């Protein structure tokens, strides 16, 4: 199969993630969209690695997974804490700056 198609898929997934982050209010969904963007990037890395025939892109994909795992741990902890204090998972409610 033409590896370019993987890149198109990666771009589509990234765009879906980016739109999701911007338009959705639920913190969990926003979080999932971020994961989607990270994984879209991973897909692109792996595809490039395959296309160029070296392992650098695959190594980067592992790094991204590690970072994503850490981010999930910290991010979910923050979301849970905010939910406990505000009884809401909406990211718009988490704004304390007065207008």
């Amino acid at each position, binding site marked *: 199969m033409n590896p370019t198609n993987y890149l198109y898929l990666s771009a589509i997934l990234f765009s879906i993630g*980016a739109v999701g*982050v*911007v338009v959705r*209010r639920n913190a969990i969904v*926003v979080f999932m969209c971020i994961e989607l963007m990270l994984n879209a990037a991973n897909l692109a890395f792996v595809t490039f690695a395959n296309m160029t025939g070296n392992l650098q892109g695959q190594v980067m994909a592992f790094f991204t997974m590690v970072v994503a795992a850490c981010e999930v741990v910290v991010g979910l902890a923050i979301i849970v804490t905010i939910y406990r204090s505000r009884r809401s998972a909406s*990211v*718009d409610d988490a*704004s*304390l*700056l007065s207008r």
Partner: protein
Amino acid sequence: MNTSTNIVYLIALPLFSSALLMLLGRKADKWGHIFASLISASAFFVGVTEFFAMCSRPEEARAVTQKLFTWISVGDFQVDASLLLDQLSIAFVLLITGVGTLIHIYSIAYMSHDRDQRRFFAYLNFFIAAMLLLVLGDSYLNLYVGWEGVGLASYLLIGFWNQKPEYATAAKKAFVMNRVGDFGLSIAIMIGFATFGSVSFSGIEEKVGGASETALTAMGLMLLLAAAGKSAQFPLQAWLGDAMAGPTPVSALIHAATMVTAGVYLITRSNFIFDNAPTAQLAVVMIGIITLLFGAIIGTAKDDIKKVLAASTMSQIGYMILATGFGPAGYAFAIMHLLTHGFFKAGMFLGAGSVMHGMNDEVNMRKYGGLAKFMPITSITFGLGYLAIIGVPPFAGFYSKDKIIETAFNAGGLQGVIFGGSALLGAIITAFYMTRVMLLTFAGNKRWASDAHPHESPFLMWAPMAILAIGSVASGYLLYSGKAIVKWLAPVVDKDHHEHVEFLPPIVVTALAIAAVVIGVSIALLKNRGEQSESAPSDVSIWTRIARRDLLQDDANEFLFMRPGQEVTKALVATDDRVIDGAVRGVAASAVGSARGLRKLQTGYVRNYALLILIGAAVILAAMWVVTI
């Protein structure tokens, strides 16, 4: 020039005593006044010794110097703190220490009831030291130190009873007006340094031939301003009347005999400047004439005995300044009048103090009258001073004033007639107002306050008055016999031995001067005959009223300087408030305003930030894409 090692003691003794009395404080209360008087007397003794030593030397070796230390040394410019005792300084030294000692003795009795007597004597000694430094300094810079010192002493002593606010104000007025003159002196020193590269009298005199007349005129006018401030000459005369707030011995010593004559000294000492700057000399003459008439007119209108004497001092110093304006022909007579005036005016001030002492400190002459019987010694000593000041031959004032009038006529032509005529007019007015003082105080009906018990003053007070009265009688003849003073001062003020032209024969001038005295005295006798009232008449002409207000001198100062000064201050405050503070506040306000606008960018919504990050990333990528193509 010879050197001497004794001159410094003249200054060091009173300075030491003054510092001692001030530092010891109340511990010295018991003996401070005696100590200060002895110190003053010993300074006089040093002065007399120096005088006889000077007389024993040949004429060209009479001046001596003493270098104390190098004061300023910057590159080529060097100023030594050194003293110069020549024929001119010694005359002042003897006057200052001699009259000063007499007034110290007088003050022992006069100030005996004052709890701050010691402080008074400390200030008096400080004044003597500063005044001696003024006349002994060998450069303008040394003179300046003494000049400021006597200003400070005058301020401290005018405001000696500063618990009274109006006395403190009088002291402040004197100090501020003196400072105006002092600016003239400092500018003159700067002009002198810029032109000649030197500040010492001898250094400037050497190079005076090479200087432009403009520079000399500028320097002369600035020196004249300085002299006007210190000597209460027009237009800086207004402080002298108020200076009478000080204790009477102070008025006698500082505001009659010595400090106020510093201006005459300054001009005489700077003769090499003025002799080469005819414009400045003319200005000196004009100022002298204006002041001698100004003071005399104020003298006719005042009822306060000390203020009359102050006005008369102003007028007599006007005569001296007038004389100095005639160059080598006049300097010696200016100094001669200064010395005789030192005797008779100090004597009269002490007499006025004695009268006040006996009349519960009353100064209004309308509350006196008929005191001759109760204060015989005071009335005689005062009377001798009176005969001297109006210029009755052979009393001291006759010789000196007559010579000044003669010199004024000798200026020649119409100028000479105007100058001489004004001086004669001044003599008429002087005779008038001094006769009025005599009549109101010592003659006529008693107009005393009910609790007044006039009595003669103690020995310590009348002895100095008697000595000064002897001086008022004899000093003129002694100074003038064989032209002694002229010959004595010639090496300082008349090195080239100018020939003096005579416009009128001296005998005619003398006759005119005596006629002036007779006219003045007759008018006073006519005007003041019969009973005197206890209060000044109020239905008087506008001219009398103006004269009673000191010829509007304070009003003029207020209108010309004080009010505009206040306006300038107000404008400056407004500028500071609006322009300078406004700029600072404006910068702050614009920072606050722009921050308020920029704050809107921070919404606090995560999605907002995410969108911005996205857009930013897209922009960067787009830019990179554009660059790589």
